[in-house]
């Protein structure tokens, strides 16, 4: 499904992402874990085709993101915690707008929008201007936008950031349903509990590099720690010993 190979991105003299490789299979949730500034957002933006890597390449369903960006983006649903909505549009109008941008037929847009509004319990605010919605309502509308075109790969960049516990849990459950539907999900967070609950595999990112990667049990086993937080802290306490992520 998703294969990212040796991605590098520099901003001036700063190397934000350094030789990061990742793979996500259908029906799998892979978590990208790291503190603020670790390079998670840059990595996900490169995978989603929003940023072009300096070197390395990304393929989604065999399609190269750099050489065929439009085709590749058709397969991606991207959502980040800081993604905002158009203030002067309603969620329903926004879904119709993005549906057209993704080349969906009008009847399919209507059907999918109806489905998502019901599934994500948006009926009470689907016709209100987005500028008037609460944070939780906005993020639900955003999720609907990312899920709308039924992408094979979901790239979710800290989707629960700045949400309360109830809204956050609602989002996490939505993501689990997408996994059950067979979608590949790449998910970044700095909340270790979320990662433990949701992810099939976890990649620990620090200073632009993947320092460890594998199922939760393997990470804990290798570190000898009882939980992911301790494992991560132990890992970043070992400077100069980065591991190349396994494909």
């Amino acid at each position, binding site marked *: 499904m998703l294969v990212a190979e040796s991605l590098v991105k520099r901003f001036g003299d700063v190397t934000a992402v350094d030789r990061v490789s990742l793979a996500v299979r259908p029906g799998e949730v892979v978590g990208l874990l790291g503190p603020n500034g670790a390079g998670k957002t840059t990595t996900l933006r490169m995978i989603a085709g*929003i940023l072009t890597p300096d070197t390395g390449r990304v393929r989604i369903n065999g399609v190269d993101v750099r050489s065929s*960006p439009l085709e590749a983006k058709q397969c991606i649903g991207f959502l980040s915690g800081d*993604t*905002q909505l158009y203030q*002067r549009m309603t969620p329903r109008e926004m879904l119709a707008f*993005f549906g057209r*941008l*993704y*080349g969906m037929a009008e009847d399919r847009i209507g059907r999918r929008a109806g489905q998502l509004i019901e599934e994500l319990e948006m009926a009470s605010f689907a016709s209100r201007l987005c500028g008037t919605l609460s944070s939780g309502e906005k993020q639900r509308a955003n999720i609907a936008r990312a899920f709308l075109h039924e992408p094979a790969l979901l790239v979710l960049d800290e989707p629960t950031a700045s949400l309360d516990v109830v809204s956050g849990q609602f989002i996490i459950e939505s993501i689990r349903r997408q996994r059950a539907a067979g979608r590949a999900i790449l998910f970044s967070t700095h909340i270790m509990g979320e990662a433990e609950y949701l992810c099939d595999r976890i990649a620990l990112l620090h200073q632009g590099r993947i320092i460890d990667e594998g199922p939760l049990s393997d990470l804990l086993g290798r570190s000898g720690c009882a939980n992911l937080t301790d494992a991560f802290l132990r890992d970043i306490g070992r400077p100069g010993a980065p591991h190349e992520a396994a494909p």
Partner: protein
Amino acid sequence: MRRHIVWTIFRKELREALRDRRTLFLMIGLPLLLYPLMILGFSKLVDVQTEAGKARASKVQLWGDVPDALAGRLAQDHRLEITAAGPLPELVRRELASGRLVPPPKPPPGEQSERDVKAEAETSLVAAIRPVILDRSADAVVFFWPGFSASLEQQRLGHLSIFYDSVRDESRLARQRLGEELTRFREEVVAGRVKTRGLEEGFAAAIEIHPQNVASSARRSGQILGMVLPFLLIVMSATGGFYAAIDLTAGEKERGTMQTLLCAPLRPAEIVVGKLLAAWTIGMIASLANVASMGATFARLGGPGGQIQVGLPVYSLAFAMLVPVSLMVTAVFIAVAVFARDFKDGQNYLTPLLFALMFPCAAVMVPGLELSVWTAFAPVAGIALLMKALFVGEARPDLVLAVLVSSLVWATLAVMFAARVFERENILLGGREPLRGILHFERRPGLTPSAGAALLFYAVLQVLLFYGTLFLKNAGTVVAVPVVEYGFLLVPVVALVAAMRYCWRESLNLRLPEWNAWLAAVLLGLSAWTVGGGLLVRLLPPPESLIRALEKILLLDDKSMPLWVLWLIIAVTPAVCEELLFRGLLLSALRPLGMWPALLVTSLLFGLAHASVYRLLPTFFLGLVFGYLVWRTGSVFTGIIAHALNNGLMATLVHLRPAGEYRDLGRSVFLPWDIILAGSVVMLAGLLLLRRRAGAPGRH
């Protein structure tokens, strides 16, 4: 580019913008309020003040040798209030007695109505009267020079001076009232003298001049509006697009929605065109509101007794002219605003641009600056001058075409620039990037300039050339041609190559060719004009006025000019400067496009630089010939030889003709067919010589 995607983005952006009260107010509310409030309110205020001024009698003091009859007559005029004047100051009296203070000489005809006392010597009389007017004891002072009464009685010339303050309205009005009353008095005196002496009526006046204004009221209105309206319309329509451009770019970044758009399967050009069309539409709606509000205001103002009468077609044409200029300005706004991180930042970026826009718009207010082959190609200024020409009904079809074509070219360049900026993902996500990188204007030590850099350089050069030539309007050809060629073509080319550290030899094609290349250059230089000037001019004969202007530019109307000077200015100078730009820098920059695209583009730019629809075809053709020559020989020197021979030969032939005969060249006498045929054979020989060469040398 997928049209349905552009349409989708356009509709969404427009819908969002129209839901924004701030945009709506700026777009429709402001113009609807502004013009009636500004123009009607202001004119009302002026009317009230004027009426108040007229109702009040002007305070006038009479100084010097005042004849009783005239004093009585002035006192009877209810518009004048004659106030008492004190005795003449001692100094004035002494100077009058000694003859040091005498009436000023009669001014030349053009200055009779307004005479500036400051321009004259500061006399004791002026020094004495000025405080009286400035402290408002009087609005005006009439000084009757010594012997005035006696002169009237003895039927001689009497002198009086009216002193007033041109800055103060009441003082000007007093001067006007005094002028009217005194003129009537003079006419009565003259009529009395003529009658007394038994002379025929009209003996003293000799001739009566009756000025008749042939300008229709629409034309007169057009002149008034043409000075102001283009400026207002362009600036107001730009203001409409100003906020939309910021909102759709920097505003979207600030709200964090740009990233959402970028992760959708869209091309940067689709996003930029969709947004541009929305901002442009908003600008055009603002323009329409402006034109409608302004038209309605002027219709109200220019009603019975008003002066402003402009028909709906003129307003419609003015609106149509806003279409290309608004597109260009909005594209530049979008491209610049996207660099901003937020709305406030965007305002900081665009405000200087808005002010910069006012400069070319103000071209309509520059006295004597009219739409011409030069001004037609200036961005924004061309449109403003075209609007002015439309208002007075003087727009020539060829210039309308030139303005529209050049505006569309500028607009396209602006859109291309905006699309280029939108390809920079880092900028769209809020990062910073140097402008030089976007324009491909990086230093390339040892290489040639990129096509984009060279084309941008050409565009900047054209703008500089336009504003530079404004200062050379009154300079003769002997000064103007070298200044333009060396100052605005050669020096910038050399400066660019030096500053960007391009390879001199490769960037300017500075190679010495073989002997047969020289021969080909001579053959083409001698013959190309016969085809360019002889055959193509038949297809599009230039108007008489252009021929005359060209003759003047090319010094062909001055038979006393030595031939060598003519060659230096008309042949050698343009050949060196223009070849180094077009067949040097531009051709080498466009070389990666392949031979024909490179030749076609450089020739088109060469033709456009000659700033005339009628000269476009021949100069385009010459550009192709010289371009092919330089492409095949790899040497700009062959182009210089051919160009110099071409210009020099034409100038020599016309110069050596008997005086008067050369003018026929411009009428209907075209080059004879036998000369065209002979020239074509020589040209063919030159081209064949080039074909036998191996081809252009490779680049390092």
